[in-house]
């Protein structure tokens, strides 16, 4: 009682501060091939990376959105909400799942 709910933005700001932000690893490039999106690894530092990562349209859009900057799941979520008409919870889940898959694939650090 008498305690105001913490505004969402404030909460987000706090969690952002406590969590480590990510960056796309150097040399990973998004390419279009007949309308399909793939990530190719370039350069000496990725000489042992032999996988090709395929991405759907929304993942590719987010990839472009966070290129050359620090980001976290919240950044991805905001981009999702800007671009698609989805509710907060879905966007948050999708953003988290996508970031996890990028970490697993070894294309962000």
């Amino acid at each position, binding site marked *: 009682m008498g305690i105001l709910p913490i505004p969402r933005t404030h909460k987000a700001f706090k969690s952002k501060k406590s969590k480590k932000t990510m960056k796309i690893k150097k040399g990973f490039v998004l390419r279009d091939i007949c309308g399909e999106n793939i990530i190719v690894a*370039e*350069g000496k530092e990725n000489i042992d990376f032999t996988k090709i990562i395929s991405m759907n349209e929304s993942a590719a859009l987010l990839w472009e959105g966070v290129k050359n900057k620090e980001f976290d799941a919240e950044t991805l979520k905001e981009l999702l909400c800007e671009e698609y008409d989805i509710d907060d919870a879905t966007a948050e889940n999708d953003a988290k799942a996508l970031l996890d898959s990028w970490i697993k694939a070894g294309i962000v650090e």
Partner: protein
Amino acid sequence: MNNISEYCIAEHNIRVVFTANDRNSPELIASFEPFRTKGSNDDFLFTLHVDDTLKPITKEHREHIDTFDTGNGDTIVDQLDNGGYQYILKDIEGRSCCLLQTNKDFSEGVCALNGNEQMRHFGLNNALMMLYAFRSSFFHTLLIHASLVRNNGYGYAFIAKSGTGKSTHTQLWLKHIPGSDMMNDDNPIVRVIDGHTFIYGSPWSGKTPCYRDVKAPLGAIAQITRAKSNSIERLSPTIAFTYILPACSTMKWDKTVFRNTYDTVIKVIETSQYVYVLHCLPDKEAAEVSFNTLSAPHQQNITSPCKSQANSSTTRN
């Protein structure tokens, strides 16, 4: 006196200058003879000078990249401080056969050969292959590890890791599919020219001496996998990319060359579209299954001349 030899490989002119030396001559690369040209023009893809007095670049002017097992011996790669490269090519027994230095865009190279005739042949042949692959990458050209057969004017390239059965499969075409001939058995060349993909014979053909100056529109590329029964499926662009890229000679650590290579692979997939995976046995049916599917999109070109023949015979009647 120096010997200057010019060759035209997949419609790219190259030049090899042999510095006077009783051990080095064009005879070391007899497989290039079918590609020899004379005084074509001054527009060369690259010039390679063969000069045994070449010395390795001192350590402070190069950065070690890696040592690669090519399957035929190790290649030691260093990048020079001027952006160029130095390669030391060793044969399967670990003997240094060739010291090769190139400029940044691979338009110029110098190499020193070492050892007996067989080692010199190995060194020069492979130096030329690397220089060709890296330099031609700037011109929508790929050197691809494949066995290539021609039928009705189209080239059909079969790719797979060594030992899977590429050559075995093309041999089955030669035996069972009338009108087939071998264009190359190991390293044909693919070019995208004005939105069309062509495939060419080359002076590099593995163990099969099939060095032919021939050209055909690309009919299809098929990845071969061994299976218990014969079947074939067309691949999506992304999957096609993952099969074709590893079959191409490139330098993964050099951003420019690697980007050139995968850009061309993407172009090939976009223009040619016909990339398949063939699950097969080494039997007659395998050749029939692959021929029927791979040649189907190009049947139009077979039926039209036949139709006109039919028409003319009707007129005669």
